[in-house]
């Protein structure tokens, strides 16, 4: 065994020393190298340009006569004869340590803040390994975000992967930052950290988050991995993997509760499409590769909790839906993998609702195990179900009002309109720095239901009604 390991190390060293002068072909982000020694699938490669600058890449296809690699840092200005390829004999790894908190890195995990590279405690393959399903611990701990639309209706659970589906110009960054600032467990703090991965977003977005962390005094608990809009697009494929590898170390080796914010997943998916197109693969929908689902799952499944280990990874990926279309492959496949979604609604935002969390398509799948007696409040599950059910009627009534006019509405229908108004303007709406506790959220929920007659409330019990429901008239101007 020891002899094997020595031989392997030697082989790697020899292989790593070998350099191949000249590329066979360059096609978009891909380079083709002919007649190499046997190169491993997904092995790390460094392409050195004529000026001697190295760029990292990864092997996507390897055979006896040709190796195809994607270059993370772009192929711009590479020449066929002048470039050299060096294979590293192992996949891309990243060194992780607690000392990365408070620091800023580039999309490949190299310091971007001028500081030295921190001494790593552990070095692992950025692709990670799947958690054995039997090793998982089912997440159940309620995180209070202080945001009613989330806590009351789409509760976030520690270890959950809950993306924000948004659109250009909607306040997803504000919402994510507010969640990151306000999130806490009800029974107080254990050590937490934030890992932030930016993929193809603008500088000011990264700066916005940085400032927000700074203002709340947690910047020394945050590790930022930035692959910004002007960085090479293919780098984005690695950035979340680097960030998650560090998150896994913090969570599962060091026992921290890590919140991972990844933005914007749409840019990530587009980089993936770029590679796929360059490889001439048969696309599935909208030009995206057929393996987009599996690829996204490799990222999103790197969250949760592990039995016998104290930490957790909670993921808050942000994605902008092209054309606000939730059936677009990026949000669609994400929704099929994550444990719910917070959907932002443009028309609500237009009506001045912040956070514009769409009432119906938003969902938290882990909510059921984290709310109710002993966690939030006994009536919470039924109250939430009733709010959803009643709010779903509001839309029908609004449609009807648009046809026959509001004045023609039956009294009951009018009450639904009032309920809808209150729900959006008082329950959902809150200030960007308003931190509501769960009791206040539930109270507001009951106040909303007070606008409806009791016989309309079939999702709650009679005891609930006796305990919490007070019939109310709509306030003027509500």
């Amino acid at each position, binding site marked *: 065994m020891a002899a094997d390991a020595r031989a392997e190390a030697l082989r790697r060293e020899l292989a790593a020393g070998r350099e191949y002068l000249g590329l066979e072909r360059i096609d978009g982000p891909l380079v083709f190298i002919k007649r190499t020694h046997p190169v*491993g699938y997904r092995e790390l490669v460094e392409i050195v340009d004529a000026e001697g600058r190295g760029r990292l890449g990864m092997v996507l296809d390897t055979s006896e006569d040709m190796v195809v690699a994607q270059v993370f840092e772009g192929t711009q200005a590479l020449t066929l004869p002048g470039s050299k390829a060096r294979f590293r004999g192992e996949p891309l790894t990243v060194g992780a340590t607690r000392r990365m908190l408070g620091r800023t890195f580039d999309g490949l995990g190299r310091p971007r803040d001028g500081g030295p590279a921190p001494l790593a405690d552990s070095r692992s393959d950025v692709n990670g390994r799947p958690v054995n399903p039997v*090793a998982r611990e*089912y997440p159940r701990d309620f995180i209070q975000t202080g945001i009613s639309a989330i806590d009351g209706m789409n509760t976030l659970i520690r270890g959950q992967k809950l993306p924000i589906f948004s659109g250009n110009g909607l306040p997803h960054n504000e919402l994510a930052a507010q969640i990151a600032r306000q999130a806490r467990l009800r029974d107080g703090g254990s050590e937490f950290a934030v890992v932030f991965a930016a993929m193809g977003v603008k500088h000011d977005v990264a700066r916005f988050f940085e400032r927000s962390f700074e203002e709340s005094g947690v910047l020394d608990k945050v590790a930022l991995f930035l692959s910004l809009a002007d960085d090479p697009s293919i780098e984005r494929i690695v950035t979340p993997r680097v960030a998650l590898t560090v998150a896994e170390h913090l969570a599962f080796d060091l026992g921290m509760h890590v919140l991972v914010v990844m933005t914007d997943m749409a840019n990530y998916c587009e980089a993936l499409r770029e590679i796929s197109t360059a490889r001439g693969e*048969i696309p599935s929908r909208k030009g995206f590769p057929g393996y987009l689902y599996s690829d996204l799952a490799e990222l999103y499944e790197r969250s949760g909790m592990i039995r016998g280990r104290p930490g957790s990874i909670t993921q808050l990926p942000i994605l902008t839906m092209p054309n606000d279309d939730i059936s677009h492959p990026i949000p669609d496949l994400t929704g*099929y993998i994550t444990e719910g979604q917070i959907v932002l609604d443009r028309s609500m935002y237009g009506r001045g609702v912040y956070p514009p969390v769409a009432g119906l398509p938003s969902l938290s799948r882990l909510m059921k195990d984290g709310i109710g007696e002993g966690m939030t409040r006994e009536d919470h599950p039924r109250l939430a179900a009733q709010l*959803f*059910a009643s709010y779903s009627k509001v839309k029908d009534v609004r449609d009807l009002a648009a046809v026959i006019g509001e004045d023609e509405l039956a009294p009951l229908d009018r009450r639904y309109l009032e309920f809808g108004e209150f729900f959006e303007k008082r329950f959902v709406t809150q200030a960007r720095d308003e931190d509501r506790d769960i009791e206040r959220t539930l109270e507001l929920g009951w106040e909303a239901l007070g606008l409806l007659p009791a016989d309309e409330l079939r999702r709650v019990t009679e005891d609930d009604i006796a305990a919490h429901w007070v019939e109310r008239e709509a306030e003027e101007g509500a």
Partner: protein
Amino acid sequence: MEVRGARAIGRVRRVNGPVVEAAGVDDARMLELVRVGEAALVGEVIKLSGDRAIIQVYEDTTGVRPGEPVVGTGMPLSVELGPGLVGTIYDGIQRPLEALRATGGDFIGRGMSAPALDRGKRWHFTPSLAVGADVAPGDILGTVPETARVEHRVLAPPDVSGRLSWMAAEGEYGVEDAVAVVETASGERRVAMMQRWPIRTPRPAGRRLPATVPLVTGQRVVDTLFPLARGGTVAIPGGFGTGKTMTQHAVAKWCDADLIVYVGCGERGNEMTDVLTEFPKLVDPRTGRSLMERTILIANTSNMPVSAREASVYTGAALAEYYRDMGYHVAVMADSTSRWAEALRELSGRMEEMPAEQGFPAYLATRIASFYERAGSMETLGGGEGSVSIIGAVSPPGGDFSEPVTQHTRRFVRAFWALDRQLANARHYPSISWLDSYSEYADEVRPWWEERVGPEWTADRAEMVGLLRKEVRLLQVAKLVGSDALPDSQRFVIEVCSLFKDAFLRQDAFDEVDRYTSPEKQARMLALVLLYWRRGSLAIKKGATFVELRRLKAVRDIVSARYAIAEGDSKAFDRVAARLERAIDDLEGDYGR
């Protein structure tokens, strides 16, 4: 199935994700199980051409290099069958995940392996036949208590018949120990408790039997409106978050199958954890035993290798057929068959095959058909009766049912539980649409229902279905003019349907009473809603108003019956019915008769 032993069959030439091309191959067989590279990754030969073999590798191929060896095992990709399956969780190629964790830690690494059936475990074997007996394929040679509720029947393998020349005495044996020896035409065959079976080959059985007994799921919308028969097939299509997994879990928990094979195919890790932590705690209403004692889990989550995902549904089918052959009724859940189809697509793409619709290979339809074909109610080789029912989730992109996987699946299943986004958004669960779903078994299982709950069931069900149809038209009108504009008799139709949805179709998977409803209780609940309908319509004719009827306190009793009335408490139903009748009598009294 003969074992030709391990031998080098070639070397790696190219690695492209899970697809590996081997060169210098002259001795490989189609569908042979191989070990690829220095890490000995599990793979399967899926194409042979000249001296090249295309191998689908079931593990992550990171680091595999050209030139590494490929070793053939002489066997097709097979499952191990024998006691110890029930209660175990496997990956898509039947590696036991608990054992992998014990040796390899919390993360799954390359080249990890462990036998599917524990070799060290001793089982108590009791012979069923005596030396000298004639043995035919499928005959029960002996039995083993596998769990407190599953008696494992050790069967003569499908290719073994002759005279029993030796039989083990009652006692403790390991799965590889011989328990019988059969004198066959081609010599002596030693039979152990453990047998192997290639996953892609359906196990032989006798003739197919008609599907006349429902697989009772305890889910009202299913059992009453869109029943599944034992040995039947059903698809559950629905966009993300509409409730496919919850429906599968509910059926896996409460249906009256003897055994459940739950295949998590390309879905979430936490969902498997959910099953693993919840099932052992839940008690089967019929046997009083833990649900885990009848469940086999196959977990190939979305982040696990895609080719093992492709194999996982076959692994599930083979295990299910094995228990069917013992005379059990087995239900297979596959969540989600779309992920399986996508695995096919990905592998096909890597092999550069010509795609048909949306990149799927042209053989998509035949593969889907042959998977569902493995369901059925069968006469077993041993002369008994067993069944495999298949319940497949379908995850159409964008929730659009016109895509290839949903469309092809529809051709091969006989029931369709269509999940509806609007219902899910309104948190009406299970969000099975009463308009788009159907079941071809409804007629076939009708006699069973009539016998079980009474002859009025057929008419009641038909009346309710008729009302739901009527409601669709009325709602269309109401959308334009407001429901106020409808006459009370029509508003009452809408009201009764809305009550039926709240009181009957909706079912809370988390409520301890509501989560399971027996056929008897379903019939009583349906009758209650219809009582309200029939009496209410008469009252309206006599002058009562729709508003008065909906305000009746007794209506709340109907809504709460699903969780307030316990199983078997038929008196409580009598009371609610009597109160309702009295309330309506009073109402009518107000209007004079």
